[in-house]
């Protein structure tokens, strides 16, 4: 061991292992997989060759959540930037379910000056051409090489500006004709060269209705639908890729746009044209997303993708190399041994998922240092995996199942022995005189638990002539254990996912209704075979919701900014503190936003202001509305709600105190923390302290209050919200709350490492 002995002073592994899309990520070690090598090789080959017309490349990177797609995408952009001369490269993560949203991000990244610079390239060529004969050949070369600006030469020599600008428009029309017949793009781009047109052209590029001065010049449509957005993307890609200039564009999370909806034929055609443009312009496009995005591509579009790179699960050897590399880069921290057995266990339990593995490494490293161990072992891995599985209790799972059964109007009994003393079931549903359906719920299942579960499943199945057993696992499901149990339960054990459980189980329960018209168990079996597909669909639905929120977030960013400015967090972080250096560093907006989001999430869940206002506003109203509100309050305003309110209040104070402490640290110590050392160790200790207390907070207790708030906010009148939905909200918030320490540390260090 080296450095600070056994005292926990920091962690070489990220707590959340979510790629940060800034240059700071360049300093994070990358796990070298075959996919990483392949993608980098494709890019380096592209950059090494002189890009010629038609020599562009479109590749796809596909992989599940947490497999490192974002990290790879950012890495590719950094490789392009590191070229000499630097190649033009851009990373875009999709935050909308429409190509219009992607286009707006793209245009915002390019910026007005970026676009004008590309148009100016055209102008330089036109001006140089007009000077390329006779006595002005030397000046032409200077303009063409951009040693002098074309408009300076035109002004300085009083050249025929109007004719030259008209030629630019014509050249742009000719060049863009491969993408679009709409000449408005060429007209608008050329107008950027004329004084005064900046604002109206920029507004139009950003989707506004064209100004009357543009309409008069033939720019009549808006860039506000997907076909127009894709065409516009192609226009700018073509501008960037001109003259053999390399241009790299990484579009991450493309599945958000391509899945979960019907894409019309015109949009597909426009997408196909866009990919053609990238190839024709000699540009390099990376489409990255969940595997299902490729299934959604029309054949004409898919065939434009030259290489598909799946993100494979990590192998134990790769993880060992990464663990070693990550620790050596933080050489002032203690070195903890990760033996092969532990790494293999970790890889197996996390299914090779990089994000989960890195997160596990973080937890294992911390535990090892705190417990003064020099190495981790397999038991520690299992414990850590269990602890980090989201803290789902079996009570939560049984509550979710119960909720579904009630909703589907299915009779059931619970917690009973259907046969001998090993035949305990959590739920029992009679399917006929000699048949039934049993649900067993387990907290976590490792290989050591298999024997007991097999005995239990056999006992249940022998209790009737025909019994099907479903095993639902609340937390960790070891892949080997799942395999061994497959022969003893229906299809395979089901891992509980609060985000999709309702959607997973609802079809199964509905199929039970067929028990008198067909074989119910056949229906169940058939459904379980399709459960993977259902999972995918559910995830799409969840992400659709997420996209809607993201789009809302983008559209209201200004309002959010105003709101944020009103919060205590920003007031705290932008002010100085008693005793602080008044010239200290202001807290970064990005970190303040994390605190703001956590507090906003808590406020949204745990403060029934809307309900209270509504009730008070209707105090004299004896209508149906008032009666229902009163009924709901009687039902929910229980002791549990008041206990939850106390917990929420405590949580809020804890987050606020953490933000104060972090802001104070940043103001006084951030400069010194650019390198590992005491200042950074104090940040680690601060974040760890937060986490330790956060872990002890009884977050499960806030559910009654969350339910009260959710039902009270339902519009226009309060309505009952399912326990399942409430539990999901609580779980999501708990995740956000408990990972806040790691996120803050990660983002602060990213800010400090930014150039």
């Amino acid at each position, binding site marked *: 061991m080296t450095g600070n002995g056994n005292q926990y002073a920091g962690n070489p592994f990220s707590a959340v292992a979510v790629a940060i899309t800034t240059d700071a990520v360049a300093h994070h070690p990358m796990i070298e997989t075959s996919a990483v090598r392949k993608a980098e090789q494709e890019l380096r080959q592209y950059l090494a060759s002189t890009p010629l017309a038609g020599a562009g490349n479109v590749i796809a990177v596909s992989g599940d959540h947490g497999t490192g797609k974002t990290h790879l995408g950012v890495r590719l952009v950094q490789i392009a930037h590191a070229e000499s001369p630097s190649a033009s490269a851009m990373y875009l993560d999709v935050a909308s379910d429409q190509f219009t949203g992607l286009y707006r991000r793209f245009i915002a990244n390019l910026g007005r000056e970026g676009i004008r610079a590309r148009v100016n390239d055209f102008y330089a060529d036109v001006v140089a051409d007009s000077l390329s004969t006779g006595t*002005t050949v030397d000046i032409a070369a200077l303009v063409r090489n951009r040693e002098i600006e074309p408009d300076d030469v035109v002004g300085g020599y*009083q050249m*025929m500006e109007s*004719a030259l600008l008209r030629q630019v428009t014509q050249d742009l029309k000719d060049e863009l004709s491969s993408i679009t017949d709409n000449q408005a793009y060429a007209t608008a781009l050329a107008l950027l060269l004329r*004084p005064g047109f900046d604002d*109206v052209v920029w507004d139009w590029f950003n989707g506004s209705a064209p100004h009357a001065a543009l309409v008069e010049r033939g720019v009549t449509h808006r860039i506000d639908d997907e076909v127009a957005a894709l065409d516009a993307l192609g226009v700018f890609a073509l501008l960037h890729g001109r003259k053999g200039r390399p241009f790299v564009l990484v579009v991450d999370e493309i599945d958000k746009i391509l899945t979960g909806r019907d894409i019309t034929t015109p949009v597909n055609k426009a997408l196909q044209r866009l990919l053609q443009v990238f190839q024709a312009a000699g540009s390099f496009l990376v489409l990255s997303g969940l595997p299902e995005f490729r299934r959604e591509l029309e054949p004409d579009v898919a065939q434009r993708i030259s290489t598909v790179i799946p993100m494979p699960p990590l192998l134990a050897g790769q993880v060992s190399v990464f663990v070693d590399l990550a620790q050596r880069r933080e050489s002032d921290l203690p070195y903890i041994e990760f033996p092969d057995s532990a790494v293999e266990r970790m890889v197996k339990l996390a299914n090779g998922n990089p994000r989960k593995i890195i997160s596990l490494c973080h937890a294992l490293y911390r535990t090892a240092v705190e417990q003064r161990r020099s190495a981790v072992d397999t038991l520690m891995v299992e414990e850590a995996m269990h602890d980090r599985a989201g803290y789902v209790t079996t009570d939560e799972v049984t509550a979710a199942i119960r909720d579904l059964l009630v909703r589907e109007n299915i009779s059931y009994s619970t917690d009973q022995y259907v046969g001998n003393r090993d035949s305990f079931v959590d739920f029992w549903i009679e399917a006929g005189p000699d048949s039934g359906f049993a649900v067993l719920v387990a907290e976590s299942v490792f290989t050591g638990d298999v024997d007991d579960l097999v005995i239990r499943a056999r006992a249940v199945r022998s209790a009737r002539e025909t019994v099907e057993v479903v095993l639902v696992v609340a937390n960790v499901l070891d892949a080997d254990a799942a395999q061994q149990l497959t022969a003893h339960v229906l299809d395979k054990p089901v891992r509980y996912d609060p985000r999709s459980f309702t959607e997973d189980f609802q079809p199964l329960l509905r199929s039970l209704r067929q028990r008198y018209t067909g074989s119910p168990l056949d229906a169940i079996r058939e459904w379980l075979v399709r459960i993977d597909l259902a999972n995918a669909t559910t995830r799409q639905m969840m992400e659709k919701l997420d996209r809607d929120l993201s789009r809302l977030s983008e559209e209201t960013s200004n309002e959010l900014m105003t709101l944020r400015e009103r919060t205590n967090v920003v007031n705290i972080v932008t002010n100085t503190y008693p005793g602080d250096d008044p010239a200290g560093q202001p807290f970064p907006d990005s970190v303040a936003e994390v605190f703001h989001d956590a507090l906003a999430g808590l406020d949204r869940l745990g403060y029934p202001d809307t309900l209270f206002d509504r009730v008070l506003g209707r105090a004299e109203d004896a209508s149906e509305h008032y009666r229902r509100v009163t009924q709901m309050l009687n039902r929910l305003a229980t002791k549990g709600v008041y206990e939850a309110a106390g917990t929420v209040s405590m949580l809020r104070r804890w987050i606020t105190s953490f933000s104060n402490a972090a802001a104070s640290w940043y103001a006084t110590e951030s400069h010194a923390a650019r390198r590992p050392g005491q200042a950074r160790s104090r940040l680690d200790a601060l974040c760890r302290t937060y986490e330790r207390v956060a872990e002890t907070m009884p977050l499960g207790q806030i559910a009654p209050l969350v339910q009260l708030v959710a039902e009270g906010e339902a519009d226009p009148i309060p309505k009952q919200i399912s326990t399942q939905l409430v539990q999901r909200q609580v779980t999501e918030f708990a995740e956000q709350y408990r990972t806040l320490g790691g996120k803050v540390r990660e983002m602060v260090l990213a800010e400090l490492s930014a150039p």
Partner: protein
Amino acid sequence: MTTAQRRVNPFVIPGREDAPRSVLCPWREPNHTELYVEIDNYAPAFREFKDQFASPQLLKEACRLALVGGESGCGKSALRNMCAHWLQEELGKVGLRGEIFDLAKETDALNQGLDSAVIDIKARMGRVCSSLLKKLATGDFIDGSVRDDLLGTAADAPHEVYAELAAAMADKDQEDVVPILLLPATDMRLEMERYLQMPGSRIVFFAEAVMSTNELSHIGAGQNADMPPATVSVGTLSPADVQLFITTRTEQRRKDCAFPSLHEELVEYLAAWPNTTVAGLQSHLTGVYDHARRTFTNYTNDTTITKGDMTDYTMNLIDNLRARR
């Protein structure tokens, strides 16, 4: 007084030394008339304009649109000013009084303190009309109350204002006045055609059309205007034009000033510039003479500006442009 200030640059308009890019404007400065050079670039255009306004008395019955077309730098403004000046004199010969109103800058954002730098045709025409009304009232060509009445209409319906303008001037005993409106330069065919359709009488709309001769020929095609637009156009200079311009202007100024001559090789060099416009040529000549004024020990009729001096001047200019970048 510095050396440079005592030395005359023969290619700057006399009296406009502080504004070297000024264009000739005989209707404002009658002595500019003699500074025009009969180069092929615009001499035929001027003759054509005269032909098209052979009957200026017809303006008593209708409005007329005059257009000088050409690319930037080709001398549209100088030709327009000369044509307007000539027309003013011709109107006097038929009992009318031409009054020139320079409205060319009325739609400039900077000039108007506008929020948006770009305005559409309707707004441009409205602003021109409003400015004209104010100038007419200030010059006592129309009554102040008429101006106030019409200002409300100018923005949305300038054609209604122009329709009533002759009568409004007559009410003020100005029935012989023909306003010659120098309009803002435009590249919009639609704008020109709207002026072509203007009702009323005794108004000349005089615009610079930033377009090629071919495009200019299409203005008004298919429209049933009482009088077709009077269109003339200017273009780039031929090598012979360049030679003639330099020789003539030098001789004009040599009468009362001393300055170096241009070496024959330099004149050939300038004549070989591709797509030379009169503004471009003027720019080169003004620039190289300024360079000579600053650097020559002897700045007299006996000295010569050579191609090497031109190269020095050009290199300085390029260095400045590079530095700016």
